[in-house]
């Protein structure tokens, strides 16, 4: 690990200012992903700004009837909050399907959104990777790509976003709230939060340097059946090959977000209108323009079958 200096921030805007002011600075919250990457020298911050003491760890009701989840709320606390369990079951289920109990105790809401891909070539510093070292090439394309993306990918990068939580947030139409060093705040719909890789896979989201996530806001509860169905190589503690977060209404309406297949939680609203016609119709809309590799083309079938299982579960 490269050496770094360390400070505890006094306020969200002060934290943002410290990151803008200090060369090579980064925020640290739970640290479960950042420290892993620092040990491998994939991340090499020169300065860490610890945001854990900023009081951003509360879940509060919003005037609109939703919930405002502080950026520092731990995954365990979010998953076990009774309001979330009752009204946003999809979110609880997605969180509980991810990582291990130890990691969920430390990992934060904002950190979960910002976690990096688990593409093996991003982790292997002996291999080219356009995300880790822009312009070096992509070893995943033509390499071992079984777990990697099939939609939203580019010729430069086929990495997936690994989060389960973000899939639920996408289906729930969450909003990401931020603050910048000058104190200016903004609210970013989760649909607009992540970039697709294109030619610049190193740019993963719309945050400016030093812009700090302060909260994630959920709109008022959406009724219906909440289901998170994750397919993976082990029964527990593994990243998704395919996961589906769905809210199926009594009127047959559906919201469907998919994990494990794209550089961001994947949702195609137009495809959801086809839900009355069954999984095949929805999957074909979700996967339009897919560019699978030989190793991961099974995911196209797996999305359709997982979706069929979700729709059947909702009807049952």
């Amino acid at each position, binding site marked *: *690990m*490269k*050496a*770094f*200096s*360390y400070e*505890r921030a006094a306020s969200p805007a002060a934290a943002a200012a410290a990151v803008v002011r*200090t060369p*090579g600075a980064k925020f*640290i919250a739970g*640290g*479960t992903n950042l*420290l*892993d990457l620092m*040990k491998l020298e994939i991340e*090499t911050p*020169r*300065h*860490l700004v*610890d945001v*854990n003491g900023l009081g951003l760890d509360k879940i509060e009701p919003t005037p609109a009837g939703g919930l405002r989840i502080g950026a520092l709320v731990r995954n*365990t606390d979010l*998953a*076990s909050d*009774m309001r979330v*369990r*009752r009204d946003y*079951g999809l979110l*609880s*289920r997605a969180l*509980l*399907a991810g*990582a*291990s*109990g*130890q*990691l969920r*105790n*430390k990992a934060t809401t904002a950190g979960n959104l910002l976690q990096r891909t688990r593409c093996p070539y991003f982790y292997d510093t002996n291999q080219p990777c356009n995300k880790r070292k822009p312009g070096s090439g992509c070893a995943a394309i033509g390499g071992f790509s079984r777990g990697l993306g099939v939609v939203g990918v580019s010729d430069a990068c086929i990495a997936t976003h690994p989060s389960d939580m973000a899939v639920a947030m996408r289906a729930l139409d969450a909003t990401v709230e931020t603050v910048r060093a000058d104190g200016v705040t903004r609210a970013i719909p989760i649909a607009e939060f992540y970039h697709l890789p294109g030619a610049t896979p190193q740019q993963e989201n719309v945050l400016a340097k030093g812009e700090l996530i302060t909260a994630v806001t959920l709109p008022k509860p959406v009724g219906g059946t909440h289901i998170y169905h994750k397919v993976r190589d*082990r*029964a*527990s*503690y593994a990243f998704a090959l395919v996961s589906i977060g769905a809210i199926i209404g009594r009127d047959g309406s559906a919201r469907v977000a998919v994990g494990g297949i794209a550089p961001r939680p994947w949702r195609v609203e137009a495809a959801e209108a086809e839900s009355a016609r069954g999984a095949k119709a929805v999957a074909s809309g979700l996967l339009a323009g897919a560019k699978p590799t030989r190793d991961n083309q099974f995911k196209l079938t797996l999305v359709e079958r997982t979706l069929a299982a979700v729709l059947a579960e909702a009807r049952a």
Partner: protein
Amino acid sequence: MIVAIAAFAPDDWRGRANFAEGIAHVMDTPDDLSVSRRGVMIGGAASVAATAVPVEAISKPSQDMPSVQKVSFDVNGHRRALEVDTRTTLLDALREHLDLTGTKKGCDHGQCGACTVIVDGRRINSCLTLAVMHHGDSITTIEGLGTPEKLHPMQAAFIEHDGYQCGYCTPGQICSAVAVLDEIKRGIPSHVSHSLTDRPKATNLEMRERMSGNICRCGAYSNIAEAMASVAGDEA
């Protein structure tokens, strides 16, 4: 007996051999803060610099020179004050600075659970958190759960049910197991909980799911689950 189950592993290989990165042992004893510059030692074979670095020179952030910071926290009920390289994980602080080698370094990447400790009542991977991030926290390691004379019920149950073979993962398994039963008691749901709103029960399925962050290469899983079930039964 506790020695066999917790504070000792037959081949405690990862901890010291892999203790790299040039951690500056600024003091010889953890409780001694009045250490002179002569006390500065650089530890670790893969040290970034092979020479001692004066403390005054360390204040400027640089990728080549370690940055040193003070931190204090409670470990097993005792206040411990340290001055550590900011890179020092909580795991390395416990093992290398405080000589609490019961907590084990397995993968050092949060994948195996051997480093599990309980911080402010919650189990975490001590390898994926920095010591300096725990100022004021209360940390419980395997050494703090019980003593050879007075075993924690989970330690006793692991012995009774043969919940280990080589013993290397065992301190992490026990810390995790103690926290898992507490999580179930506090009503925290899991991936396998049938209902999100009902109180979870300490079933075999629940305990297996909740223990998935602790790997045992010897494969003592079924005995670990039995040990946990016996403690859960006694508590119920």
